[in-house]
């Protein structure tokens, strides 16, 4: 389940080898990123099926476009931008843009944490987070997730969203504040 072998090879090496046509390296690169792409897609679309579709579409585009990735920045920002586009396409296709909470019973939580980098959010805080994200305008939500989950710079988020850096900066801080106020109100209700 967790690609320990992939962890042993630095990502930059994997990317370089994948870009020169090494399929094994590409698979290992995918295994490094798939959990995070799924998480991003899940928080974008709000449901597991759409998130899985978005991951698959992202991986297809990775297979076809791995050479386009800036080796200096690594695969994360590129994958993030492609994944949110895939989510938008899926949303448009299904004409469904609002987030739908996942029924808790459908989720299996593993007993132990896989590793410190891949900490799990608690079910309650995750549900609260997704409920908060669902209240944000789509562009703010996308900008926030690209910044906080995939580590895109303001310029990269702007490029991914076809927007200006000034707009993106404002969208991110607005999204942070709205999300914080959402949590704040919850904390006041449930101390």
């Amino acid at each position, binding site marked *: 389940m967790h690609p320990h072998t992939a962890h042993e090879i630095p990502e930059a090496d994997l990317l370089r080898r994948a870009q020169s046509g090494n399929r094994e390296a590409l698979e290992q690169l*995918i295994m490094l990123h798939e959990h995070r792409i799924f998480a991003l897609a899940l928080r974008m679309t709000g449901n597991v099926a759409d998130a899985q579709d978005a991951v698959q579409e992202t991986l297809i585009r990775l297979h076809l476009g791995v050479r386009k990735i800036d080796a200096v920045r690594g695969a994360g920002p590129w994958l993030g931008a492609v994944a949110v586009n895939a989510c938008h396409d899926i949303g448009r296709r299904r004409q469904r843009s609002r987030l739908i909470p996942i029924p808790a019973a459908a989720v299996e939580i*593993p007993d132990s944490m*896989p590793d410190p980098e891949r900490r799990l959010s608690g079910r309650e805080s995750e549900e609260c987070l997704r409920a908060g994200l669902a209240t944000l305008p789509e562009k703010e939500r996308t900008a926030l997730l690209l910044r906080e989950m995939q580590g895109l710079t303001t310029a990269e988020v702007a490029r991914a969203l076809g927007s200006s850096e000034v707009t993106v900066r404002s969208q991110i*801080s607005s999204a942070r504040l709205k999300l914080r106020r959402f949590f704040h109100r919850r904390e006041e209700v449930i101390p």
Partner: protein
Amino acid sequence: MNCPEWEERVAGGDPEAAEHLRDCPSCAALADGLARDARLLQTLPPEAFAVDYAAIRAAARKGAVQRSRRPKVLAVLAVAAAVLLTVKLPLHRQPPAPVAKVAVPPPAVGVARAAPAVSSTVPKVQPRRGNPRADLDRRFADFLRTHYELQHPAPLRAREIATGNPNVTILLLQESKGDANE
């Protein structure tokens, strides 16, 4: 959260806000909350560990192969159509019948759906009947279409168009609007 003039700057990570945080408990609490939210966003949801990634990876590999093959198949079909036209023309240069100029309408999506608008000065383009060669052409068109659709979900339309010359048939191969990405 009651310091509106600074909240936006704190949320935007403005370095000048750092000094303000020391003197304003409200903004300091906001900054703590924002840091907690950022950490929560960076953690993975439980669902991320209940996904069959191997199946998704396999489907993606297959999808990538199909998409990368698509332009090649189209090229092969175009060549096949061109070859068909050039091979058929010389074979039937028997007594040259009076040749009428035929305007083939520009390719448009869904050619097979509606008859193309043809100007009244141009002979109407009609499917041929009761001609063994026309049957052969139709079978070839069917073969191309079937062969293509086996590999591609987007339908390919092959349309036979007769010309003023009974020995010349135009095969119009047309792909429906696809979903090519990137």
